[in-house]
């Protein structure tokens, strides 16, 4: 069994992976088994950084053969190393799971010897957990770039979700900061999985990766613009039918490298990228609508407000007649509010007072809507802008306590 010391090493090395979601799979328990997966996902605890703990996020090994410069586990970094056995991981998962500490396992690993050896180790652990320990809870497995495709496909039949990390938003940055990884070695397995996933869905054998695949990229370690990142994200959703793209603000783990920023990257930027990602996935926006190729997202208001300010011709929207997909484009109105409005207006025309009662964020919405044809806001663009800023300041303040705004200059002026 893993002791405290080794658990600590393997946890600390795994914590920079941001994904911890356990949603998207409805795997059922078996008569002799333990566990199932909840489609909506369940959070079991929250750490002091405000992130949820849903899965036991752990590395099989942190003894890495690679030397990626942004990574805490790089070969050249002097930290304690250890490797767990498949049995140790399985025992820990079962014991945590039955106490309801976790929803399942998120297993990743540093590159032990070579990609194939590592992937064999990961797949063997997951196989044991499913077939010998009869575990039916959620399993998220990290794919190792350049590993044998057959191993990856086999893993796909056991796990609920697989993710390959894009790591950096461009090939150029990848070459500079992660020389042993190539764009092809990451994208090829992703496209293989996407093909298999589509086939499994169309033939309805469904067992292959019920929760699909995701990816993660580090933001701020390299100079790509938000416009570039959002376009890349959109094409990943389109091409590989990814479930999620995660962004991770760069946290310095390597102070001696001229290619990397030494201060940590603004969390507001990450926050804004996630907001834009939400617009892509749920609100029917396209990357091109959100911002230009070389632009960055505004720090002081969210991307939906940004879009609304640039498109006065779309507004005002009439609350009593506009379809739901138009309503959700109004600042201050999200899916919950749109649902309430659409349900309530069946009973009669809604007045401004009704909207207030329904707790629609009127401060933001007022300048973009009409109620029964009447406009209650102001036409003055700078006032409109100002109200959006003020209502968002709360969120900003919350972030700014631990945000250093500027970071990038170091890297822009550097070698890249």
């Amino acid at each position, binding site marked *: 069994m*893993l002791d*405290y010391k080794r*658990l*600590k090493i393997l*946890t*600390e090395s*795994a*914590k*920079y992976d941001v994904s911890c979601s356990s949603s998207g799979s409805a795997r*059922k*328990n078996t*008569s*002799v*088994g*333990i*566990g*199932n997966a*909840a489609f*909506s996902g*369940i*959070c*079991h*605890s*929250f*750490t*002091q*950084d*405000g*992130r*949820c*703990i*849903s899965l*036991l*996020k752990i590395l099989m090994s942190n003894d890495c053969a690679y030397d990626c410069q942004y990574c805490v586990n790089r070969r050249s970094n002097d930290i304690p190393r250890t490797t767990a056995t498949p049995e140790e991981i399985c025992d*820990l998962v079962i*014991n*945590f799971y*039955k*106490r*309801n*500490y976790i*929803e399942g396992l998120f297993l990743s690993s540093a590159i032990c010897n070579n990609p194939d050896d590592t992937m064999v180790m990961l797949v063997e652990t997951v196989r044991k957990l499913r077939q010998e320990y009869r575990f039916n*809870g959620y399993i998220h497995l990290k794919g190792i770039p350049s590993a044998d495709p057959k191993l990856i496909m086999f893993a796909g039949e056991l796990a609920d979700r697989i993710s390959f990390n894009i790591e950096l938003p461009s090939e150029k940055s990848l070459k500079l900061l992660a020389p042993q990884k190539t764009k092809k070695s990451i994208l090829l397995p992703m496209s293989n999985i996407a093909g298999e996933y589509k086939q499994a869905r169309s033939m309805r054998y469904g067992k292959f990766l019920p929760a699909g695949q995701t990816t993660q990229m580090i933001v701020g370690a390299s100079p790509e613009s938000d416009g570039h990142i959002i376009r890349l994200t959109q094409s990943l959703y389109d091409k590989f039918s990814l479930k999620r793209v995660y962004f991770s*603000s760069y*946290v310095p783990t390597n102070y001696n490298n001229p290619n990397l920023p030494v201060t*940590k990257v603004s*969390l507001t930027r990450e926050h804004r990228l996630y907001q834009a990602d939400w617009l892509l996935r749920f609100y029917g926006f396209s990357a091109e609508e959100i911002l230009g190729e070389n632009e960055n997202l505004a720090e002081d208001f969210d991307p939906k407000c940004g879009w609304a300010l640039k498109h006065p011709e779309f507004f005002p929207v009439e609350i009593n007649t506009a379809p739901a997909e138009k309503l959700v484009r109004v600042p201050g109105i999200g899916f919950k509010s749109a649902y*309430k409005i659409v*349900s*309530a207006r*069946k*009973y*009669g025309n*809604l007045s401004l007072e*009704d909207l207030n*009662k*329904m707790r629609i964020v009127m401060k933001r919405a007022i300048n973009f809507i009409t109620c029964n044809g009447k406009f209650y806001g102001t036409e003055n663009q700078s006032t409109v802008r100002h109200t959006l800023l003020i209502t968002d300041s709360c969120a900003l303040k*919350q972030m700014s*306590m*631990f945000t250093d705004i500027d970071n990038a200059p170091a890297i822009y002026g550097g070698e890249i």
Partner: protein
Amino acid sequence: MTKYVFDGTHDGFFTCIFEAFSTKNFPSDISDGADQCEIGDIPVYVKTDKTKAERVVAGIKKAATKTAYRDIKFAMHSGKENKYFTCFSYAVYVIKNKTIDVSRNFSENYVLRFNDLIYAISQEIHRFKGFIRFAESDGNFLYAHYSPDNDITAYLMPHFKSRLKNYPFVIHDTARNILGMYNGKDVATVYAGNKTVSVFLSENENYFSELWKTYYNNVCIEERKNERLMKQFMPVRYWKNLPEKKDEAPF
């Protein structure tokens, strides 16, 4: 000010609605007798009548979608003081407007307040699917204690039963002394009255809860600390029953 007092049962509650419509004396509050009457209250004691209750239930089912009746039963599990009156007002509103189904009219205060109850209970059920913490007892069953705001134990049982099929377990609501029990086959939820429950833990238990704390303390990224956000997702009042947070809990 008329205040209805009933026996706290479902049938009793629906009988109150019947009384209100038949006497045209609509109360300004309604209570299960647990709280004191205030000065100015005129208590009306309503005697539970199954036939009357059934007529009201049939009326609600006719006036609105099937979910409205189910929602009222669900909302009665709320821990809020005014839950009976909120449910009462909602039911009365739905019945009075029986020609159109108004159960989803969110611009009406009765519906909004009722919906708040439903939302709070559903949210807490979802949260405790994650925040329940079992400990292994030396009697080879799993035991969890917690004190939720709402009476939700019965709603958690099916979830844990399907997960822990082969592990008998007990979920103990210490605020209400209600026990949800699963013996490996059947589920039962019972009220333990003023009896106390004592459980002896297995030898391993301490080892695993310490391992869990080790994990919890090391998975946090120090540079990104945001305690306010953590507390928003995991309210401090729940901490006393979580092994990883127990030491920081204020009471």
